[in-house]
């Protein structure tokens, strides 16, 4: 029997809020699904959306980008840059034909361990429903991505 599909989720998180929030999820022993792999960055402002495309190219079925809430950025404005860039990237994705449901942008603070677990479960379930993201490979083949 073939193994049921398990999605591959890649998360890009900032060190100060979401990474610490995910640490808090651990310290609080809140359980979530093990499909996620976290990549730690200093700030969401560091996230170049080429990274997201690379993650899809490597076979990620879903992506989470999460950082500090507006106003709470450790570097005072990095998350605003990320938010602006995100608007542009959203349009670009739509233009390229990338399924917008595959990327989730969220704010999770260092105090929101519960929110992080809920977010991961929500995204994992949603992406499991969507199935494997083989479409992206077709986009690569078509020279779009």
């Amino acid at each position, binding site marked *: 029997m073939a193994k049921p599909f*398990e999605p*591959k989720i*890649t998360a890009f998180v900032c*060190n100060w809020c979401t*990474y*610490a929030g*995910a*640490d*808090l*999820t*651990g*310290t609080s*022993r*809140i*359980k*979530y*699904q*093990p*499909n996620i*792999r*976290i*990549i*730690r*960055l*200093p*700030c969401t*402002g*560091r*996230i*170049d959306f080429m*990274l997201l495309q*690379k*993650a899809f190219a*490597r*076979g*990620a079925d879903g992506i989470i980008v999460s950082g500090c809430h507006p*106003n709470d950025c*450790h*570097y*005072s*404005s*990095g998350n605003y*840059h*990320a938010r602006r*860039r995100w608007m542009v990237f959203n349009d670009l994705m739509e233009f390229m034909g990338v399924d917008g449901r595959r990327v989730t942008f969220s704010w999770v603070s260092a105090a929101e361990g519960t929110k992080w*677990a809920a977010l991961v479960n929500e995204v994992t379930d949603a992406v499991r429903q969507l199935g494997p993201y083989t479409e992206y490979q077709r986009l690569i083949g078509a020279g779009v991505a």
Partner: protein
Amino acid sequence: MSRIGVFVCHCGENIGSTVDCQEVAARCKQMPGVVHSEDYKYMCSDPGQSMIKQAIEEQGLDGVVVAACSPRMHEPTFRRAVSEAGLNPYLCEMANLREHCSWVHEETDSTTDKATDLVHLQVEKVKRNKPLQPIQVPITKTALVIGGGVAGIQAALDIADSDRKVILLERSPSLGGHMAQLSETFPTLDCSQCILTPKMVEAARHPNITLMTYSELEHLEGFIGNFKATIRKRARKIDEKLCTGCGLCLQKCPTRKISDGFNEGLGMRRAIYVPFPQAVPNTPVIDIQNCSHFRKKKCDRCVKACPTDAIRFEQQDEWITVDVGAIVLATGFKIMRSDQFPEYGYGAYPDIIDGLQFERLASASGPTQGVIKRPSDGKEPETIVFLACAGSRDAAKGVKYCSKICCMYTAKHAMLYKHKAPHGKAYVFYMDIRAAGKNYDEFVRRAIEEDGVKYIRGRVSRIYEEDGKLIVKGADTLLGGRPVEIKADMVVLATAVQPNDGQIDLARKIHVGCDEYGFFAEAHPKLRPVETNTAGIYLAGACQSPRDIPETVAQAGGAAAKVVALFSRDRLTREPLVAEVNRRPSPIYSDCVGCFLCETACPYQAIGQETVTDRDGKLYKTMAKINPGLCQGCGTCVATCRTKAIDLHGYSNEQIYAEIMSL
């Protein structure tokens, strides 16, 4: 080929119970570049650290991955261990198997698979780590304290007592701040000026403190250890060196009817004045808006009166630039004024006053010499109603927070009134009594039980005047909302504490953050309460949030300790995880094309411009240059850069792409 060592920690049962650590270590051995892999019960223990050191020495490792808890927990521990074995500390990375894996998942194969992936990710990263050297920055060992209230005075004294130079800046003509205005202080009822003025004098006389009153910060540039501050020293129109503070000029000044700010508008001062008799420095100031010499080009009575010829009508503002290494912000607060309350008559009734005005009435050095009198007719009130939470905890007024000090000072006001007029009646309307502090609740109980102050739990909906009395209409919520009406002679509003005027402007000038209300934001609400997110700038007192005197003094001492700790070193060591613009051989010099998007994106003004000229001095190229002393390593510029000319040490593109490729 890399020689990476992987060390998998069981963390007792914490990781070992859900992750098969032996299996992870075995799988890691198969990863390309990994030459050593082992697991151990407690990697952070002494024997665990020795294992790492031993492996580095014996196997000649050039990179280490410790798969254990969160790097936020033990990264410094393992980096130290690695450097003790002679390896650059930045060649050590941690995989977070505990918080991000074992604690959040059940014991299944996929948990062990995830653990392996997490280690693999770090292995791929560490292969691309570069040895980094901590950044060394020189330090100017002079501190700038902005604000001369009790917070600023205390911070300045503590720093100066540690044998460091301090510049104490105050925008009004005298030190003292709000504390100098207070009559007595809770919960001891000792006189505020009696405990403050000796400190003011000490600050002025201290050989390490340079006092700059009537001066404001105009501009700030630089970074921790190396700030350059431009200060505007406003003209007092008095030669400070010649003035002896005799006060003869004050007596001769014919312009007498100017509302006195120090007395909160309850008294009058002259056009040449010292804010209060104990002012430090005791040098007067000429208020050029009101002085007849400046308004009508006549009158020189002060010039004639001055025995030392110290009056200088022609004196101009000066701009002074100073080098400082650290800054303490102690700019204090302001209170909401009674004209912001439509329900209480928009400040139209002179006998509705705010807390600071009551302080001046109760103060022995105040406009009434400490006799409580109505501002309207000078009669002594027989009934006073005190309203706590006027504006505070009221989202409609934009103040959702508790102003913290009002419960206590309202109890103090009621108590002072009862002491001065034992037959008078004092009522307090309150929401909750928040008297958390040493001897605070006892103090409130004393007001109620010994001094007979009537506390009514409820809000006041309206105040209006009728037959010379103020009718206070409210509800008693402890009696099921029964309406209460009190005929009062005077009403005191304990209005909300707010950020001081100009605080947002100052925050922008010096690039520190503010919270949603405009108070300065601390670096961490619990663990770094006296630091800002801008390195080298510290906080003291009510500029951060409402605070009482003991807390303010304690925080000022904390800020001073941070400054002194910073100054205890000759050079500053900083994490080298900063961004850098790449270099290419001539004639390209760098991939940077000089668009300077990064310059606008940088939250720290760390990016400047650099020019490349040819031999004849002709401009060849302008490109970005990052100051590693200022850069905090957020990486916003890296993502912004169009040509990928900027990279961030520790989180380089190469490293992150390698992490992604490992998945």
